[in-house]
């Protein structure tokens, strides 16, 4: 059932999947009970000769209990779900942990412009390097991504990280992630941004420490 999810390779993705599963089981059971009850009522109380329907207006408190008690249960489960999710959301969008690597992703119709601050770790200096559509980061490190947009709203979506963030033009939005596996994954734009929206595809390269060092050495040869 949950095989349909893309692989999860972020530290917080597991929590998100957990909340999804929790909701799935809770509402799944509720859903089945509800539908089975309807099916049962419909079969049981189908029209038969000589049998009259019961006159139940449901305006008295004892009768209303039949619908209000299940409703209280629904409310309780709802709140459980909501509070179970609060922590997971806070981990992703709440306060950011201290980052090891920082990178800027600027979006425009229909490309991801990725800027690395270089060895000095500061943007807008001479050693910045800008690449299109390829985001290289090390594994097991906290990565801070500074998101910007040059034109319309885009949405930075990495399915394997369970990370999605709309990017508003005129502001910067920060997100973070920590990948747990190496590999090459896809970045997608999740917010309609024009006719080329579907082509706005980027790649997330997650390197092991050695690979990452080699990649760094390649684009910033030691001076």
């Amino acid at each position, binding site marked *: 059932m949950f095989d349909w999810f893309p692989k999860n390779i972020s530290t917080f993705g597991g929590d998100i999947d957990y909340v999804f599963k929790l909701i799935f089981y809770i509402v799944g059971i509720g859903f089945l009970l509800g539908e089975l009850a309807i099916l049962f009522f419909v079969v049981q109380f189908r029209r038969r000769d000589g049998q009259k329907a019961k006159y139940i207006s449901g305006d008295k408190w004892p009768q209303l209990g039949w619908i209000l008690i299940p409703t209280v249960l629904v409310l309780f489960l709802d709140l459980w779900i*909501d509070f179970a999710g609060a922590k997971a959301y806070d981990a992703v969008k709440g306060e950011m942990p201290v980052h090891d690597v920082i990178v800027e992703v600027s979006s425009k119709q229909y490309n991801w412009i990725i800027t690395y601050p270089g060895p000095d770790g500061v943007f807008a200096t001479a050693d910045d390097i800008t690449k299109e559509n390829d985001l290289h980061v090390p594994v097991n490190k906290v990565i801070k991504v500074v998101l910007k947009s040059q034109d319309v709203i885009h949405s930075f979506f990495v399915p394997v990280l369970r990370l999605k963030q709309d990017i508003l033009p005129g502001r910067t939005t920060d997100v973070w992630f920590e990948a747990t596996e190496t590999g090459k994954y896809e970045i997608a734009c999740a917010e309609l941004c024009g006719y080329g929206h579907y082509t706005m595809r980027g790649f997330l390269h997650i390197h092991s420490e050695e690979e990452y060092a080699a990649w760094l050495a390649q684009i910033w040869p030691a001076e």
Partner: protein
Amino acid sequence: MAEQATSEVQHTEQMSFVRKYIFSVDHKVIGKQYLFLSLFMALVAGTMAYYVRWQLAWPETAVPGAGWIPEPTAFSGIIPPEFYNALVTMHGTIMVFFVGMPLLLGAFGNYLLPLMVGARDMAFPRLNMMSFWTIFTASLCMIASFFVEGGSAAAGWTGYAPLSADPIYTGVTWGLNLWIIGLALEFTSFLMGGINFLTTTVTMRAPGMTMLRLPLMVWMQITAAVLFMLSVGPLVAGAILLLLDRTVGTGFFLPGKGGDPLLWQHLFWFFGHPEVYVVLLPGIGAVMEILPVFSRKPIFGYRTIIWSTMVAGVLSFLVWAHHMYVSGMDPNLVMPFSITTILISVPFAVIIFAFMATLWGGSIEFKTPMLYAIGTVTTFIIGGVTGIFNGSPPVDIFIHDTYFVVSHFHFTLFPSVFLGGFAALYFWFPKMFGKMMNETLGKIHFWWTMICFNLVFIPMFVLGMGGHMRRIYNPMQYDFLKPMQGINQFITYSAILLLLGQIPFIVNFFWSMFGGKKAGDNPWNANTLEWATTTPVPHENFDTIPTVYHGPYDYSLPNQNEDWQPQHLEKEPAAVA
């Protein structure tokens, strides 16, 4: 103000054809006009859905039946991305604003509300006529937008700025302006309609028809009208600002000129959530009328349902930011909005449980309207429970803007608009057109629609779990979506079947209208006032205005011979005792 003068409207027996059928002020004729408009627009938007689905299943191949579309909109049936975006946008816009609202509020609201409250017409008949011709003009704007240079609006039905705020981003010029103007006219139309709904209900009820003896359909209609009036204002303001951005060159939503793009989303969704209930409430209102009639039982918890509806209506104004969990708004606002969102499931749980309790102990007869009513409840439950996933902020980070969301809102809107709408149509068709609809064709239509609808939208949840983004022109661009292409194709096959499944309905509709079995005054033995008058309904609805003695749902009263008790007849002494 001027509409007061309508009291002078003269009713002559020999009205010209134009006055009687085209510029008619009779709520029954206007209701039918709305009905035909919405069914026609449903056909238009359904065709768009077919083009969209084909493109998703077999990207960039010629769509059978789209060869007639001239270049540069399409190329001998092959749909380019610009047109695809326009199709997605207009499918959503038309289905919500030009099918859902005209069908449920326009057609059934107008037709039924005066009959149900026991009035001779709406309070302002001329305004009523204007409201229809306004939405008619709005529909023309929408359809015309396809034929202007640059094509139709292509910024999504939500029209997020700045994509929608400056023509350079989409290449769409007048198409999107017409979209805004069309929407503004549509809003005006339903504001005018809403005046009538509320005023008629408050001031023109028949003697004895207290507010708590109103059929629930009336309650749902007026609640929907009030919700619409209270929520649409800010969006009208936003639409004016957006139009100025596009045409005059102001920068309300353009960050480069000092504007704020997020504001559009706040304005849109402040309207958006109440709007869902505007479409939903009349749909389940029809279910509330049909369930008691075919289970021969009172609706369970009449007052509780009314209160729940009001609570849901109030809450619907406090949940709009749940559409914006990943929009970049302040994360501290997310928790309060997720709580209100999750609370809104409570009143609807009450209503669903009340429906189930209505079935319990009944004597259920499976006529087509009843099948549709039960179908509405069963599928709406899926729409409700999947809303919990979307309402949960962490899960929404992943499934936001994926097919999970698409499927969720189709599971809420399709049951209310189409299943509820069909239920209503099969149920009130005898009153509206004086003929019975064919039962066999009706049942074929029900099962076909029901099965195919689920086959279309349940797999979409799977796509959403796989991270399949919505509004994607060609999913094959992404490696992680390629393995799911089979599901996309399956959905498209089902969608084509779903569309073909409407043929029995169309045949039934027209065949019954002209050659169906003649309907009696009250073919379902129902209690409410619209069945108390003759079929076909006379010009001023009732020969004499009936007096109402009790509530609308007194079925199977104990100590009584008949299992129904029309509102305009006094109870037999035995039943009173």
